[in-house]
């Protein structure tokens, strides 16, 4: 294979991957500036039409700090209280509901301002399979008051679109 062919193949591959990503999202990406994210955001919507569980998390908080740190929690107010009032002695059903309904993580974040992608570099997660991983989010809207992004592989299954409102 000569050099020109290799270049052509590479170009096609890159183009193909870009198409794939575009197709997976099914929504236009937003142009974003990292500074626009800085601050506190409260969950306003969690749209996961193809998620594997019903009644997903309905309460969330997300903090982006200027120094590049972030903290994230998506919690479910409908998780039943533990009869024993003790996290160490939950029943199997209580523990299962809590694990299914809640996820939290923190770490650092980076953005690709040109293509509207946001990456969470997760230092620690309550879902330990994500600890030490990079999680890509596709920002579809970002204004002074609202942030919307798609998670192409949600921990709860399928894709999820999260809508956040800026907290004053």
């Amino acid at each position: 294979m000569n050099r020109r062919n290799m270049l052509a193949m590479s170009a096609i591959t890159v183009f193909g991957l870009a198409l794939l990503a575009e197709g997976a999202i099914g929504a236009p990406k937003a142009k974003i500036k990292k500074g626009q994210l800085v601050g506190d955001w409260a969950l306003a919507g969690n749209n996961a039409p193809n998620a594997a569980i019903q009644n997903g998390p309905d309460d969330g908080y997300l903090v982006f700090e200027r120094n590049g740190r972030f903290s994230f929690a998506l919690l479910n107010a409908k998780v039943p209280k533990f009869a024993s009032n003790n996290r160490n002695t939950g029943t199997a059903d209580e523990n299962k509901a809590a694990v299914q309904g809640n996820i939290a993580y923190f770490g650092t974040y980076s953005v690709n301002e040109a293509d509207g992608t946001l990456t969470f570099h997760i230092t620690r997660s309550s879902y330990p399979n994500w600890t030490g991983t990079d999680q890509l989010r596709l920002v579809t809207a970002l204004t002074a008051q609202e942030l919307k992004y798609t998670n192409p592989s949600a921990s709860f299954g399928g894709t999820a679109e999260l809508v956040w409102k800026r907290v004053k």
Partner: protein
Amino acid sequence: MNRRSILSISAITALGLTVLPGSAVAQQKTLKEQLVGTWSLASWEQVMPDGSKVHNYGTNPKGVVVFDANGRLFVMFARPDLPKIASNAPRTATAEEAKALVAGSLAYFGTYTVNDADKALNFRLDASSFPNQVGSDQKRTITSLTADELKYDTIALAGGKISVGLKRAK
């Protein structure tokens, strides 16, 4: 003493005087002003009524506490050795995995207030991964606060006293 020396001494004196009030003001910061920012969990220990010690998040706990200037609070604590979910999906965690994750991690957010007179810190939990805490007020007492370190105690629901140590995250 020539004129230049007098000027130098005046300049030094003026500089010295501006430095002094500066540090005095720094010391007069309210507790809230000193708390604001992000802190990393350094230690977590519960001393039970019988004197035994429990480390719910292990001896090398991981976590973050964010005190925002606007009064908002975010907390997450976790053991460093939480077991991965073998099925790669929280919805299909086994009973043992779920038990370990619930006992070994905690996340909540809400608001906080601090009382300078008695160093009391109050966390109001709007949401928590432990449902029994949702909507509750959790009292802590600050036992140490410097630029880089924060320690507070709390009376545990299940009895005994919990001491939390935090380091300021840079």
